[in-house]
């Protein structure tokens, strides 16, 4: 799973450049687990390189939300392609997360 991590002040920006499917989602889940273990309390997940997501991918984000909540952390999502955003919308999970059109707006006021 190709993930690029950068820091902007106290915000961890994680850009995913890979499909999120049944084969790759376990690796994403592990990466998210590592962030929480390192006490990252503000995460922006950049979906610029994500062209596909399935139900296992959706599950990793619900789990990330729950794990971060335990350490009083939160995350934001940005740059979702319309077809990927549609999967979040159809399953209604989009209303659980903060979703932004661009990385800049996701970083503002976080």
């Amino acid at each position: 799973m190709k993930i690029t991590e950068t820091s902007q002040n106290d915000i961890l920006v994680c850009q995913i450049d890979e499909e999120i499917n049944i084969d790759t989602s376990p690796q994403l889940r592990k990466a998210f687990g590592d962030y929480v273990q390192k006490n990252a309390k503000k995460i922006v997940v950049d979906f610029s390189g994500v062209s596909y997501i399935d139900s296992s991918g959706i599950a990793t984000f619900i789990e990330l939300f729950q794990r971060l909540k335990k350490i009083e952390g939160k995350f934001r999502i940005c740059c979702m392609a319309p077809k990927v955003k549609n999967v979040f919308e159809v399953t209604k999970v989009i209303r659980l997360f903060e979703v932004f059109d661009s990385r800049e707006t996701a970083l503002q006021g976080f």
Partner: protein
Amino acid sequence: MVRKKAFRQNPLTDKGSMYIMNNMVIEQKLKLSLKDVPGLVEGILEKMESLGIYNDIPMELRLAIEEALTNAVKHGNKLDPDKNVSIRVETFPGSVQIEVEDEGAGFDHGKVPLPTDDENIWKTSGRGVFLIRHFMDKAEYSQGGRRLKLCKCLKPK
């Protein structure tokens, strides 16, 4: 639709494939692991694209087939490496029909909780059947839940 080629391992073989005019029938029985699913579906979609009969093969079709196969391997066959998943894909000028069958105990497809309900929205599983039903034009279970027949209308070229 331009799909990014991932060069995944593809368990699909030419054995069990039949081409008639511009249509095809693929019929295979495979011992699948979860890791095999994306490559298998990529192989099926590539064969469909190579027929040149569809204007576009939407992501939703790929998603539904992958969810169906994942469910067959994970929930149907309980990840048993000795159990098979049968897949049959038949193309028609304006549609595609897919059948997926596992060798598990079956399940009551009528009792799958709605993942969009408030009491289920935070669960980390249970969205596969919902996505299949949402994105496919037809999704019918039979054989006690072991067989799933999907149909999707596609715009012909």
